[in-house]
């Protein structure tokens, strides 16, 4: 920091003292002020609130003692929860507190800081605030790095942050943000600490409190700013029930073990400590892979609630044009697909409360209701009136709402779903693998895949499908589906994404002047409008108007080198139309016309 300050002083010819003052202000803005008393008071309040809005919080004790040992040992420990709701960090802190584990220092977005009273309360519960983007502010970067790393190195309390960077609006895991993780791991690369432990935590909600706002955001209606008055206005939340929450602590990982043979720490010993070294290629690769395995672990500990299965089934009916289903029928379907999901490795939360159809429907309200023996998906649910201004049809609200819930079952089924999609006719295992990896590459922005595990993920998924009798492997390694109902179920999971991607890419291909540049946001909302205006598919897929999916589809074009994205200005330019039409052609061959 001292070095950065003196370079800055030279570069800007400002007096060092002034820069020092600036730094002090920034630190003041960042720092936490942990206080046990405040934590206890807030804890009591939180408990009350939770009692009111959540029917139960289930905490799995597995790994809890390992976590306690790690935190007691005062060695560096990162706690990395999944992020679906603002309740996440409140729950984690409260949970650790009640298990007598040192409560973590939490890296929080600066949005909260501006909230009156609440901001300083959070500070006293151990939160410190970082700006969402500070790309070129060297002083801020230096202070942030130093502050964060000193928290890691001193190890007095665990450091908690969200690797997804922000709450996932879609129910799917987001692509990991690597910045914070890189900063946290640097003390290990530098050998300032001998190891760092990472403990992923998964929080699964039957229903998140932010659902309504997130649905609107996905369609392009911005979220309101975090403010205390907003929070008070949001007190109506207290009158609703959000069902159950399931918390699972993942097995702690040792960075040292994971980095064995991948990162040579010795390489940094030729540079003195006082000279900062940018992360080497091997370190960056390691951070990315580690981030992916953290997310993978979070996913494997995620819990599927039956209401999400109900949403999945209802969407499949809607895709066939059927907006209401008899209770008996849907009940059978839900039980059948729950059974299938368990076979495919999902943790299903099936108990007296979660498994009652009326309660499931309640968790999907206001989008789904029961009306004279039928389970009905509302085509213009309350809340959808916000869409009118953007010219989006009301039914999209329902589709996106159900889609978010369906996404919760996708973590564990995506590989099987892609395989189901490409497996038609007689194809050998090798051919299926090739096509699987092509689709996987296409969706790499949408789902979190480990970079080097194409083969092993594929094999695992095929073995699993074979072992539960859905797929069989015949002569000459020809793979064949035995269970056609399961096949349709799986295809319906992945179809909305594939269709939206292809539509969006076609829009890019047909409507763009390759010379001009355009902002990412503009392009996405243009695509959204164009797809919407084609109209016919809307009855099937909410994803077609889901800006998040559209944005991912554009970003994945960047990965495929079809276009360039300037990250800092969020500009899109240089579309390679020939390459894109090649890619589209080859994909259309793989993805048979939709069912």
């Amino acid at each position, binding site marked *: 920091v001292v070095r950065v300050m003196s370079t800055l002083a030279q570069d800007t010819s400002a007096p060092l003292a002034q820069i020092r003052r600036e730094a002090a202000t920034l630190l003041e803005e960042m720092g936490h002020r942990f206080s046990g008393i405040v934590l206890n008071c807030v804890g009591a309040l939180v408990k009350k609130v939770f009692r009111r809005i959540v029917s139960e919080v289930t905490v799995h004790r597995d790994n809890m003692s390992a976590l306690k040992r790690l935190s007691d040992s005062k*060695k560096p420990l990162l706690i990395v929860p999944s992020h679906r709701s603002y309740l996440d960090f409140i729950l984690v802190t409260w949970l650790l507190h009640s298990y007598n584990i040192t409560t973590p220092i939490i890296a929080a977005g600066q949005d909260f800081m501006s909230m009156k009273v609440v901001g300083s309360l959070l500070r006293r519960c151990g939160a410190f605030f970082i700006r969402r983007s500070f790309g070129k502010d060297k002083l801020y970067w230096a202070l942030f790095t130093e502050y964060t790393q000193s928290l890691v190195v001193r190890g007095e309390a665990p450091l908690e942050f969200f690797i997804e960077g922000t709450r996932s609006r879609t129910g799917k895991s987001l692509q990991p943000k690597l910045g914070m993780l890189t900063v946290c791991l640097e003390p290990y690369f530098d*050998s*300032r*600490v*001998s*190891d760092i432990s990472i403990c992923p935590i998964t929080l699964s909600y039957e229903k998140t409190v932010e659902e309504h706002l997130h649905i609107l955001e996905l369609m392009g209606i911005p979220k309101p700013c975090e403010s205390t008055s907003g929070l008070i206005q949001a007190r109506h939340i207290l009158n609703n029930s959000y069902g159950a929450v399931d918390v699972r602590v993942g097995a702690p990982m040792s960075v040292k073990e994971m980095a064995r043979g991948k990162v040579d*720490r*010795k390489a*940094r*010993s030729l540079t*003195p*400590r*006082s000279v900062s070294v940018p992360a080497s290629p091997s370190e960056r690769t390691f951070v990315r892979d580690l981030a992916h395995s953290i997310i993978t672990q979070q996913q494997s500990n995620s819990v599927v609630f039956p209401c999400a299965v109900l949403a999945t089934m209802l969407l499949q009916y809607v895709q066939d044009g059927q907006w209401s289903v008899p209770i008996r029928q849907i009940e059978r379907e839900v039980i059948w697909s729950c059974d299938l999901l368990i076979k495919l490795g999902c943790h299903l939360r099936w108990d007296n409360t979660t498994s009652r159809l009326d309660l499931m429907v309640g968790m999907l309200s206001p989008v789904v209701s029961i009306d004279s023996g039928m389970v009905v998906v509302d085509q213009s649910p309350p809340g959808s009136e916000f869409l009118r201004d953007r010219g989006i049809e009301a039914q999209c609200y329902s589709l996106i709402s159900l889609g978010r819930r369906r996404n919760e079952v996708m973590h564990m089924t995506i590989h099987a779903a892609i395989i189901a999609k490409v497996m038609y006719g007689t194809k050998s295992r090798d051919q299926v693998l090739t096509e699987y990896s092509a689709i996987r590459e296409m969706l790499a922005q949408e789902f979190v895949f480990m970079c080097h595990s194409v083969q092993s993920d594929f094999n695992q998924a095929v073995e699993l499908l074979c072992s539960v009798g859905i797929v069989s492997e015949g002569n000459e390694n020809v793979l064949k589906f035995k269970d056609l109902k399961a096949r349709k179920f799986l295809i319906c999971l992945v179809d909305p994404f594939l269709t939206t991607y292809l539509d969006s890419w076609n829009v890019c291909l047909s409507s763009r002047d390759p010379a001009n540049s355009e902002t990412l946001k503009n392009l996405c909302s243009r695509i959204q409008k164009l797809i919407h205006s084609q109209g016919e598919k809307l009855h099937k897929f909410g994803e077609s108007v889901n800006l998040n999916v559209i944005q991912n589809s554009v970003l994945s074009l960047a990965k495929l080198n079809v276009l360039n994205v300037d990250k800092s200005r969020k500009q899109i330019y240089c579309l390679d139309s020939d390459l894109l039409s090649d890619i589209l052609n080859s994909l259309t061959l793989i993805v048979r016309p939709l069912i």
Partner: protein
Amino acid sequence: MDDQERAFPTKRQKSLKWNGWGYKDSQFLLNEQSGVIEFTGNRYPMSGSALPYLFNWFQQELEGNIDTQTPAQPLDISKIPPPVSCEKFNEEVQQWCKFISEDPEDRLMHGHGHLCEEIYLLRNNLYLDKRIPDVVIYPSSHGDVEQIVKLANKYNVALIPMGGGTSVSGALICPENETRTIASLDMTEMNRIHWIDPENLVAKIEAGIIGQDLERRLQKEGFTTGHQPDSLEFSSLGGWVATRASGMKKNVYGNIEDLVIGLKMVTSMGTIEKSCQVPRISSGPDIHEIILGSEGILGVITEVTIKVKPIPECTKYGSVLFACIEDGIDFLQAISRQGLYPASVRLLDNDQLRFGLALKSGKGLIERFSNNIKKIYLSHLKGFDPLKMVLCTIVFEGAKEKVHMEEVTIMKVASQFNGISAGEENGKTGYLLTFSIAYLRDFGFDFGYLSESFETSVPWDRVKDLIKNVKENLTTVCANLGISRNPYCAARVTQSYDSGACCYFYFGFYYGDLSNPLEAYTAIEESSREEILANGGSISHHHGVGKVRAKFLEETISPVGKHTLIAIKKGLDPQNIFASGNIIGLVGPTSLLQSKL
């Protein structure tokens, strides 16, 4: 020279242990009735005294238990395999050199150093089916050695030179797959001081002389080399050169490479030496640098011309307590920045300090040591956490005025780091204990503990982290290996340089619940070395590479660097007569240590 005057006789097993450290008459023994550990014999300041607190320390810190004893097995000499004799070689050697032995005890004594693994195998009679030398030859002059090396080349006999046998790198282990006759060259008969030159302050000495004999005899003439490695009692001058030894007082006298003026080494190609004894020379890459640290793979060091100094007018000890190790290290760095180098400065970390306190006995210096600490602690140091504070011990040496001045300046610097003088006695005791502490490992063996020391050198900016990380890593590795009791790990900073320091670690762990103790030991040692390297530390500061650290050589000196050493080896010793396989010979752990167990 008369055997009476020597550290140990030609047949060293007459006075030295065959399966442990040092003299037979000196050892730590537990008096089971009183629960007090005693140190036997009369050679050391601690000898003959009871140590009432030591066993308590052992029980509390290491969870030691009187019920889990693992006594050493008696030597079963009949099991030592017969030698692979080369009759003609033996006959011809005997024309030059009358001391030659195929006695199984002699062979066993020359087949190992003092690595923890070697001693463990010896104690459990597991060394008996290892490859050991087939014949031991005791040359008594440079000429003898030249003839022996010639004959070895003629009859293709492998040679492993040996001095005091205190190696802790596996350097004396015979390669398991060596099918030729292996001859150990015991150099300790070559112990003459050819001359002392008081004008130029150098002395020419045969390489086999043992450290304590060299010092005693030089001191009779009013001189000293000032070279004091912790193994001084048993290690030899030639051994120091062959391993790049470091002495406690290197700040005043220099390490071995600074002390050496002339060297003679017999190689398969003949003798390598310089024709002048000058303070410095520019003659291309220095051939001394090839001999220093060659660990017996290039030839036999026979004569050393070494700097000597008049015995200093005054030697004074001092000690300073610091609140925590960070303060202590900052102090060391500060004095070396100011160019203040008293003869020796050592920093004992808290674990080491508490161990030192446990060594107090009912009499003499040691008793006062502990009382002083207590007194100071109570009167001045309230606020010093006894579980955090560290002790720095200092030796001043030289003219009285210089010593006085140094002492005043250093205490002033110490006070800047909130250090508080803990008196002269505490400093002195620390150094006097050095030699007897080496006997503790055998006591540990008796109660199911494996222990070892290792060392490294590291730049100043990484010293603190290295010590912390190595200790932490060791605890983690032990836990992962399923070692139930607390492992012990203590650190000290033993040498300061302008750009860094030497860190020394002791570690010990209970092996009673392990099916393969040596495998665990190797895992711990290698993991520690990896951690050291990752922290910017070196492969070794003064113990050398030998066989146990050979696998880390290439990454330390680059593939081209290793290739250079191999080229030199091939050029000097095409038949691989000096076949110990140290440094570059075996990559990976030695087959000896892995097999069988």
